[in-house]
């Protein structure tokens, strides 16, 4: 019996908890991508760098607050800095929309032109982030590191395996739940949210009903920027902040959005968790887990790892391809680009 409990705890500690946190971060990012896609109808390649930019602002404000001795221990100071980051992200998103995308919207350019423009924005945003904060790793987490520590858990339960829950992981899930609840409330209950859904479903019909397209686009950027800031900050607290890593997050985020069904908020969340759980479960070495459950002589010699962690991008990609081939609309019947 103990062995089974130990095995469950081991799996929870190394697979379920990290994947839940990572999945929530991806889901928040994918929500931003999917909303921009639903309203502006292009895949925004600058989203990863928008996340990096917003997180950078949060980090800078956090440093200032830390220097001033302001904090909310045991929670990280970054939480107080978050609103500033959100405002900065909204400001730069609206600014790029005004300077770049609006022109092509008025010209009714092909979606691919928007994508190329977003590559230009990506370059510029990337440059700004690197000039201001540099290309290196930055740490900005403070407050308590763990909600539950391994030793505490062992004392409580008397099991051999321990379970640690990092503050950042608990925080990720808490904040993500609040953000998603607020988003869904907005989309379902408010006039602006309904206008956005109508616009996303059928542009002509929405315009005919008197929906103001400028308002809709405005809200889309506000929401995407807010979610990008939250996702970026939580990812940075949980792992670490490095501009290039955020750029690379683009792939799993796109995968999550497409797997869930592009343009579908609920799909983006499910997609985020599908991608995160696949990445973590496939790259986890199961030897120790099996040792608890099977007689020692049945367990293979190697690590029993399906794929080395170096290939985690491959996993997002394989999921993406399988979904595109089997069900191109994604799990939740989104749009086909």
């Amino acid at each position: 019996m103990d062995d089974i409990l130990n095995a469950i705890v081991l799996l929870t500690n190394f697979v379920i908890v990290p994947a839940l946190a990572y999945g929530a971060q991806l889901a928040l990012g994918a929500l931003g991508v999917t909303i921009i896609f639903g309203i502006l109808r292009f895949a925004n390649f600058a989203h990863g760098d928008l996340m990096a930019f917003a997180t950078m602002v949060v980090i800078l404000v956090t440093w200032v607050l830390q220097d001033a001795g302001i904090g909310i221990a045991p929670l990280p100071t970054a939480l107080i800095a978050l609103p500033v980051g959100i405002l900065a992200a909204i400001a730069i998103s609206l600014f790029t929309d005004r300077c770049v995308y609006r022109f092509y919207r008025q010209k009714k350019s092909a979606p691919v032109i928007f994508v190329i423009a977003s590559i230009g924005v990506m370059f510029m945003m990337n440059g700004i982030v690197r000039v201001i904060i540099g290309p290196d790793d930055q740490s900005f987490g403070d407050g308590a590191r763990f909600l539950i520590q391994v030793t505490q858990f062992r004392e409580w339960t008397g099991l051999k395996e321990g379970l640690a829950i990092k503050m950042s992981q608990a925080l990720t899930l808490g904040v993500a739940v609040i953000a998603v609840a607020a988003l869904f409330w907005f989309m379902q209950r408010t006039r602006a949210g309904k206008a956005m859904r109508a616009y996303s479903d059928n542009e002509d019909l929405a315009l005919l009903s008197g929906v103001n397209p400028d308002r809709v686009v405005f809200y889309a950027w506000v929401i995407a920027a807010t979610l990008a800031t939250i996702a970026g900050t939580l990812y940075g607290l949980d792992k670490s902040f490095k501009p290039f890593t955020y750029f690379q997050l683009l792939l799993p985020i796109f995968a999550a959005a497409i797997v869930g069904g592009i343009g579908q908020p609920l799909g983006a969340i499910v997609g985020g968790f599908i991608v995160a759980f696949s990445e973590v479960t496939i790259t986890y070495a199961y030897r120790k887990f099996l040792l608890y459950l099977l007689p020692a002589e049945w367990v293979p010699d190697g690590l029993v790892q399906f794929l080395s962690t170096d290939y985690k991008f491959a996993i997002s990609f394989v999921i993406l391809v399988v979904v595109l081939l089997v069900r191109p609309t994604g799990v939740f019947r989104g749009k086909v680009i």
Partner: protein
Amino acid sequence: MTVNPRACIYFGLMALALMAVGFLQSWSLALTILNLCLISSIMALGLNMQWGYAGLFNVGVMGFAALGGVAAVLVSQPPVAEAWSAGGTDLGLTVLALAAAIAIIVLVRRAMGKGPLRTFVTFVLAIAGYGFVRIFFDPASEAIESVDPSKTGYLGGLGLPIILAWPIGGLIAAGAAWMVGKIALGLRADYLAIATLGISEIVLAMLKHEDWLSRGVKNVTGLSRPVPYEIELQTTDWFLGLTESLGAAPIEASSVFVKICYALLFVAVLGILMWLAEKALHSPWGRMMRAIRDNETSAEAMGKDVTRRHLQIFILGAAVVGLAGAMLVTLDGQFTPGTYNPLRYTFLIWVMVIVGGSGNNWGSVLGGFLIWFVWVEAEPAGLWLMDLATSGLGESSTLRAHLLESAPHMRLFVMGLILLLVLRFSPRGLLPAKTRHQ
């Protein structure tokens, strides 16, 4: 063909800019920039085939360039006999196991009717096959990687002249493009972009971590050269005689000479490719490609097989990119998978094609030259500007020190700005592609 006066002016200005570098900085630097400009042009030419001729949105240029690069290692490095004897048998079995697994999957799929059950069975068989292949592959890679890991630890190459790696690099990239195209080309533009982005990351992940193949991030250095070495030149009589008659210092002259040799090789490759590309673009085939790009439905109504043509051009473009990738590794003399970065190897090439003029081969070459030049020279220029802008802050200012340190990253910003400006104000690029009705 009529000569476009605009192209002459632009290329003339480009030549002047390179000469200015020669006079103001050094000729060795000017030639280094020229060589990389030439390689960039070839990469841009490859991407232009995919995007400009056919409208395929490939964001995986880096992957194909890296595959070309690994060809340089696999062709030119001497084979490591110990590694072959340590892991060769197991590796052979791996290949057999892989072939068997694929054969079983294909046969089972043929035998079964279409439907969710077939998808499920394929999935299960693929996982089982993967496990089966790993039984042979794991000991093989371990044995190979443990052969003198600090020096070799990989299978080595064929020990052939490195220049052969250029076409072979193109072939490897073409093979990969065939596989990618089979999977992803049915997709619409945005999906293809994301799919190719993913594939290039996977290729890089493999090159970084499959140490048995090309040593991964331990890098392969000291690749052989298609041109003489500086040290040899400095002891060769005819070369010493040449430098003496020119009145140049032998050490500096030798490095310039080597770079000129490379430049001549690259110009020859670029010339051949341009000739072929121009011939193709102005043939019935080229007109068909443009017709497909501009209106797929009507091209299909004319009986053109759009999917096949897309696959064809995707493979051709990837082959050209792979060729350029192999040339780049040859020029560097080393293969360092850790240095491949999508901003530099994918998106920068995109900037080149868009700025030069999508669909126009000469435009891509110009874009390759111009953008690489700006990319390189933005660093000293950015430093100089930043120095000027912050000179009021005083020598000891930490802000000034930080800004000066981060000035090189300004070039990313500049690239984005150039791309957006061209896209907005001159969306057809510096040298727009000619269309009949104009």
